[in-house]
């Protein structure tokens, strides 16, 4: 649910990076933060528990132009990935405008990927959202690892609804902005439909 700030003439959109524990959500966000112009971004806020962090920051990508005189500000969030933190994930999904699912390409994390995808659908459904109707992109991260599952296999297992997907090695930044642009495009299309 995007929020409009009339005084600053901005539309605020929330994009949540979801995925299993240690799949690279934080690495994605940190890379985006590092590469974004200081004038365009807010503070990087980290809510840390003993083992997990939730990161948040907002930024205003100037290249995207405006919608009816309003600029679009993106608020990027990560969720704690560890399977136990279901309640925090549900909370962070409130008011979401777009989701990036970061999948860990390693064979030993296939269970965790599927479980996290299921968890995403359940948590969205509990708040009245349907994943199929949300701007949504999948990122297959850690493609450089020798244990990475072939793309055709991981995609057929996780991506059952032909969602746009991207390959990434987030530690090197490859595929990070491509994924963000992919989901941002879908969020903007949705905004243009509604405003």
């Amino acid at each position, binding site marked *: 649910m995007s929020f409009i700030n009339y005084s600053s003439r901005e539309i605020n959109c929330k994009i949540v990076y979801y995925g*299993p*524990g240690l799949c690279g959500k934080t690495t994605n966000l940190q890379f985006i933060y590092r590469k974004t112009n200081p004038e365009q971004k807010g503070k990087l806020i980290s809510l840390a528990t003993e*083992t997990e962090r939730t990161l948040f920051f907002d930024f205003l990508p100037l290249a995207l132009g405006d919608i009816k005189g309003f600029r679009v500000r993106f608020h990027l969030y990560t969720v704690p990935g560890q399977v*136990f933190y279901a309640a925090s994930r549900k909370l962070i999904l409130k008011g979401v405008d777009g989701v990036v699912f970061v999948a860990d390409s390693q064979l030993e994390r296939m269970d965790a990927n599927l479980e996290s995808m299921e968890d995403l659908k359940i948590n969205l459904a509990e708040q009245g959202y349907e994943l199929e109707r949300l701007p949504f992109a999948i990122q297959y991260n850690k493609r450089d690892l*020798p244990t990475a599952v072939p793309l055709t296999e*991981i995609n057929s297992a996780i991506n059952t609804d032909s969602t746009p997907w991207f390959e990434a090695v987030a530690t090197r930044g490859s595929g990070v902005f491509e994924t963000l642009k992919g989901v941002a495009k879908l969020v903007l299309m949705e905004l243009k439909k509604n405003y």
Partner: protein
Amino acid sequence: MLVGCPRCKVRLKVPDEKIGPQGTRFKCPKCAVVLLVKRPAPKPEQQKNYTLNAKKVLVAHPDQSIADRVGEMLENEGFIVLKAADGVEAMVQAMKELPFLVLLDVALPKIYGFELAKRLKERPETKGIKSVLLSSIYDKSRYRREPASLYGADDYLDEHQIEELLMDKIKALTGQGEPRANAPETEKAGAASSATDILEKYAPPRPEPPAGPELPPKAPAFSAPRGDAMVEKARRLARTIMADINLYSPQKVEASIRENSFFTVFASELREGKKLYDNRIPPDVRSQGDFFREAVENFIEGKKKTLGIN
């Protein structure tokens, strides 16, 4: 034989020789309810010998063109080919048709091929079926490596090698050729008693086995295909919980397994995990087996193996 009174839950010891062929009536000494006690039915595997069809091969692959290509090859060699496009369909076909061999794509929809291979080995009627996992590879030069585990399957084959190697592998599996020298060791079914002993300390007491006719009958071993997919989901969640415990504190896990204190050290994680599992998995699926406990046992067993602890 131990019998549980359905009313007062007291456990009674009944000598086997006192139970007649039609069962014998006993009065519970505590609550005076009359129980009809019968001998337990023999286990299904003792009742029936399952014969596999030496001509039938099941090809389970979501890609129709690959399934057809493999099917044609096998038919030319005189085999009867069955096909399935997802894991549930493959499971049903394997149980119904009892082929001697199944070729399973690793990423089958609904139930993964490697999960299915493990499931087939666990069932009495299908444990004799030979299974071969089919896998494609992402980058032939960079990512090719021998799998560390076949999840109970007998062999594996990369998709681009089917034409070249499939018939040799079938011969090897049926004892008509040389077995593969470099095939990785398959996982052994069942957990060691030591792991079970540790788990007993943490787990709540198990319910008493049904003994008399008054108690509800045991759920059938295989209820429905949909049920099977749900069981697979329950297993997957339980495995993920254990994998996450390990992922976030690998050194602590290792030390606690070496010191035999895993259940004390990770008591709160296990409690949280069980809570999540109970919330997420419907009671009818949980009643089919304690999959959480199974995942904990398998995890400890696997860790012990890796650490070289017996």
